[in-house]
């Protein structure tokens, strides 16, 4: 008590007065001046079925529709190829086509996509050859395309590990003076990984031109969102890192396109990263190896079917007189042509050279690998002779 009295006397409080406690921030604290509101919307943003849709460009609506129909057909075709044993595995995005495709279409050609293993459709929407997009899942080669050519990083299997790559690439582009944006995709489960947190933090600290898209499809294999996070939403996670979080209806292609376009523009003009959570649903099982009846009720799936991304867009287009039966047929036929081509090319056995095992381990083959290659060559010759 003595010392307190002594101290108050040094600041010359009137004798007898109780010193008022006025908490002040520690000296090093600086208020953040970022004017952007960081908190996400309280409800997932929707455009379809609201007045806002009147502002949407009809050409964009029709393009999104055609791409969604094609994406759905891609999903059903790839799933069929799995059943025929043509693909080792296929993680379907049926029900998620809107967020996959509308997000990818918000990018410019010079931008980069960092997809997870599920995001084949986003890659195809950017123009990647449908067969090249499937080599990982067919098992003939890990990545069937040149990432630099398409500006699509390899489809990434270890969850969330591609996110720091997206930050690094976007940062490097900015250092070089290029106005390139990176879009990094991750699932709801992936947001629990350390790499997710580290990527967001780096991106915010460096103000890197990155957009993080979380496709919240309800489950990480069998684990529902409630066991993944206690946050009010995944978009809320942005706030702690100092970047805006946006919440959007992931089945509303127009809303996803709008939010992503804004976030990409913001990143491009130097405004830093954004975290977008798209609320959607995985209609199919995790993969063909998964039994979804173990962890979810059929009724839940049916509810989401009523909110199908193609259905709700089709309804809007029809009501506005932009789409009639002919238009629908044209979109379906274009999708069918793509599917037939995919089927035909996937039904041909890929020509593989086992010697490729040693081709790209190092820039220059080591003596050790040359020796092992010789061993395999001898084995293959012996096999051929037998």
């Amino acid at each position, binding site marked *: 008590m003595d010392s307190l009295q002594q101290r108050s006397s040094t600041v010359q409080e009137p004798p007898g007065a109780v010193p008022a406690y006025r908490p002040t921030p520690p000296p090093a604290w600086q208020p953040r001046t970022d004017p952007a509101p960081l908190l996400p919307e309280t409800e997932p943003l929707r455009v379809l079925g609201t007045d806002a849709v009147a502002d949407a460009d009809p050409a964009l609506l029709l393009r999104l529709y055609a791409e969604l129909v094609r994406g759905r057909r891609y999903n059903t075709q790839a799933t069929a190829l799995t059943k025929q044993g043509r693909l*080792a*595995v296929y993680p379907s995005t049926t029900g998620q086509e809107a967020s996959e495709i509308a997000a990818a279409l918000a990018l410019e050609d010079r931008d980069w996509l960092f997809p997870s*293993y599920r995001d084949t459709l986003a890659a195809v929407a950017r123009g990647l050859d449908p067969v090249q997009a499937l*080599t*990982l*899942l*067919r*098992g*003939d*080669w*890990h990545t069937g395309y040149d990432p630099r050519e398409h500006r699509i990083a390899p489809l990434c*299997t*270890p*969850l969330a*590990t591609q996110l720091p790559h997206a930050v690094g690439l976007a940062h490097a582009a900015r250092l070089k003076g290029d106005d390139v944006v990176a879009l990094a995709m991750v699932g709801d*489960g*992936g947001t*629990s*990984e*350390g*790499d997710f947190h580290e990527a967001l933090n780096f991106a915010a600290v460096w103000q890197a031109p990155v957009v993080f898209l979380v496709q919240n499809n309800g489950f*990480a*294999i*069998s*684990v529902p969102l409630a*066991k*993944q*996070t206690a946050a009010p939403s995944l978009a809320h996670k942005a706030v702690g890192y100092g970047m805006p979080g946006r919440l959007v209806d992931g089945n509303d292609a127009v809303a996803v396109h709008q939010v992503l376009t804004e976030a990409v523009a913001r990143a491009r003009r130097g405004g830093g990263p954004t975290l977008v959570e798209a609320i959607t649903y995985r209609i199919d099982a995790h993969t063909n*190896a*998964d*039994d979804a009846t*173990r*962890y979810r009720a059929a009724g839940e799936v049916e509810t989401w079917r009523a909110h199908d991304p193609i259905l709700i867009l089709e309804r809007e287009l029809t009501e506005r007189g932009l789409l009639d039966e002919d238009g629908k047929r044209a979109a379906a036929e274009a999708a069918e042509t793509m599917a037939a081509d995919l089927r035909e090319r996937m039904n041909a056995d*890929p020509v*593989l050279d*086992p010697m*490729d*095992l*040693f081709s790209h*381990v190092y820039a220059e083959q080591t003596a*050790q*690998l040359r020796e*092992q290659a010789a061993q*395999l060559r001898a*084995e*293959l010759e012996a096999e051929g002779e037998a």
Partner: protein
Amino acid sequence: MTTATTGPAADRTAAKAGKPKPATMAQALQRAMRDAMAEDPTVHVMGEDVGTLGGVFRVTDGLAKEFGEDRCTDTPLAEAGILGAAVGMAMYGLRPVVEMQFDAFAYPAFEQLISHVAKMRNRTRGAMPMPIVIRVPYGGGIGGVEHHSDSSEAYYTATPGLHVVTPATVEDAYGLLRAAIASDDPVVFLEPKRLYWSKSDWSPEAPTPVEPIGKAVVRRRGTGATLITYGPSVPVCLEAAEAAQAEGWDLEVVDLRSLVPFDDETVCASVRRTGRAVVVHESAGFGGPGAEIAARVTERCFHHLEAPVLRVAGFDIPYPPPMLERHHLPGVDRVLDAVARLQWEAGS
């Protein structure tokens, strides 16, 4: 032998004879956790999808139902978090059994494994043991896409403070996992995925006696040479030994079961009998467990050796796509080629 009595026909015969239905390795592992949890309330199972789903390989099937979600827990999707939390739980007296969903998805947890799990006893001068089991499905041969087929044992065996074990039979899957859970030290428990569905007449009602960790076993007697192997390569070596018989080679097969601690006694006794040895594993040969084993055998059995200790391993390449994996994995032919090379003559 595990695989001799499998197949639907064998199943039907067994059923007719009133024998127990053959169990798979996955079922034996499940049973080991179940029995351990029933006996000891401090045993907790956790990981991604281990609860409601019962794990992607169904190895934890039914545990959440029987013991509740606090004892068999679906965690958030975060390997570092899972293992890091297990460290804290072990500090407070629990015995966590954690599942890493696939070999290559355990890597985010390496910081916890190497810096804490493996070193805690040593750092605390014995005050704080880490009775944690880290179950890792490993290895190839199931047509998995990339990051689903790594043989990561060399990383684990290179880390002092960890035990590293791997079963090759249904019986051992049960016995070794019970021993691992009972161990007061951390055990990396490598489960050969391509043997998950292998079967035997093992009965959960009369489980195999639990042997302490660290004992190898001779799976096949022979006099001509010793095949030293473990996990997924054990059936390959047994098949090779059968094939070699036709060519006049009588091979002995030693299943290590435990890489750390290493059973020098069983291995060296065998090599001294046969005078020749080949180490077989599917992980990369360079810096792989075979290098260590060949060196140990040479150091201890030099005067008994008729030929250098040879290694048959996976190539020194990242695990290939499934359509090429058969060219990478050491199969019967490669083992037999090595056996032929054992007819080594000094100076040749």
